[in-house]
């Protein structure tokens, strides 16, 4: 099993009671799991995701996560 920290940006965290923004979520997932697997495991629909970073780099849905990675999930943004 791989253990990763998942941090949620914006209002995504609202879905998780007692979410601590300093610590994030401690998630255990089977080896070889991808970013898409992790967000599915957390029940976050892909439509609510803009992009995801792993250890500070933007990653695609299919990227495989390694043990100890810090993952940040960002909502789609609008602006200008």
């Amino acid at each position, binding site marked *: 099993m791989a253990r990763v920290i998942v941090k949620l940006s*914006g209002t995504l965290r609202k879905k998780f009671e007692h979410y601590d923004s300093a610590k994030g979520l401690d998630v255990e997932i089977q080896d070889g799991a991808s970013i898409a697997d992790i967000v599915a495991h957390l029940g976050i629909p892909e439509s609510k995701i803009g*992009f995801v970073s792993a250890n*500070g780099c933007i990653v695609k849905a299919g990227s495989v996560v390694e043990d100890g990675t810090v993952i940040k999930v960002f909502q789609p943004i609008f*602006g200008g």
Partner: protein
Amino acid sequence: MKLVRVNMTDRTIMTEDLPEEYKGIGGRGLTSIMINKDVPAGCDPLGPENKLIFAPGYLSGTSLINTSRLSIGAKSPLTGGIKESNVGGTVSADLARLGITAVIVEGKIPQNETCILIIDLTGQAKLMDAAPYKGMRTYDLVKKLKADHGDKHSVTCVGPAGDFQFATASIQTSDLDGRPCRAAGRGGLGAVMGAKGLKAVLVARGGKMADTLADPDKFKTAARAYAKAVKEDEFSSETLPELGTAVLVDPINAAGAFPCFNATKGQFEQAEKINGDALAETIKKRGGKTTHQGCAQCIINCSNEYVDENGKYVTSSLEYETIWAMGGMIGNDDLDVIARLDFLCDDIGIDTMSTGVAVAVAMDAGYKDFGDGRAAIEMVEEIGKGTDFGKILGSGPAAVGKHFNHQRVPVIKGQSIAAYDPRALQGMAVTYATTPMGGDHTAGWVVDQNLADFGGTLDPLSAEGQVEASRDTQLHMAAVDSMGICDFAQTGLAAPGGMENVYTMVSAKSGEPFGEDDWGSLGRQVLKAELDFNKRAGFTAKDDRLPKMFYEEPLPPHNSVVVISDEQMDSTFDF
């Protein structure tokens, strides 16, 4: 549908019916087309030939939500090209409810005189001598105007920076609480207003003479559907009210596109101290306000009211771009300093972005240390006092670079970039370089397309697809800015059927058919007018380039440079 023409030279005012050629156009479309037609492109921006035009968006004054955006246009003293800067608050709705399509300020008052323009509930406009108001900062000014003329007006005004005619002076306008905290910041339009001798425009609130709608029922149905879509969108209904536009700090920083320390780094290590969560927590803990309505008819409420440790008011509508300019860009992680600088800029009437970048360039040149908040505050105070150094700072980052003989100056056509580094978001390189507005983010914000679908739409570090994305967005925004729709209510446009709702409303107002092709040709018409003006003002393809730093200095953490070629830049507007 009328134009109020104010001649400052002889202090005359004429009200005219809107000429046929401008029917169906508002906001940026109107200011840009009119300036291109009536302002000599080679004129002195601070001289009598320039015109300063205030135009509510085409849908301002209607029942549609989030449509109180006022476009202000002129030839810019900062870029030397055409400029449109739009601003919220209440004034756009106020003017539109008096049936005023535009206020055109022409000529120039004799030296040392100052006037205010007052438009009453009947739509009558008059100029009044305003010598006692000259030089006043905006917060005191609105207080005094309120005492002298009552509080049933919106106030759109300049501070000392505008009176001094500094090239980055803003035009400030009042929010729903009557505070002059909303800024048409870019392009130095405050200097144009100051040069004309116009200190403030007071517009009566609550007019009942808005343009009649050709088909009110059809309009109402489409407006309701639009509002429903905005309410249903999570970003506009939850994220923005809770965290404000500061919510952008984290994703842009994570993307390595948050320019800091004068754009020598793309990630700010202390970002968590100034991000949306930090801002909201600080405000809540101290009893300030998040979820604050800044503009008339807004249902999103992205604004806020920032207070100090004792709960005392500091500033309102502290936004992402300012948090960047007065935060990461100058290496400052203290929210209190950022809020103070935001207030000072609003009070002095100067663009927060250009000023933050000007301070950053001075710090980079060794004048003061990055992160020295006290020094930054002192520097901005100098602008308000009009000292010799304040004059240089108020003239913008390029003037500061020249003063210190410092080469790293992130400006395009004389105007600074915004809070997105083009080396980490290549599409923004195209927008900054090619928009007729000079370094400007709202003209073609392609950040979402670069940071969407799990990074699957566009690769932010690659040139592929960026020119097309920027072109399409710039055309689209030229039309959006003509409607008076707030950028953050664009979630309503992006929703299924959202564009059709807007076409329906335009058509239900004008009584003429309006569809996708008309939207496209509106955007093209506006951009063509702007490009034409700039060409006649002397701009060439060479001006559609970024400064060398973006091509030659790799930006950590991606260590990328701008990879859009000159040919690609030049293909952006090939129509």
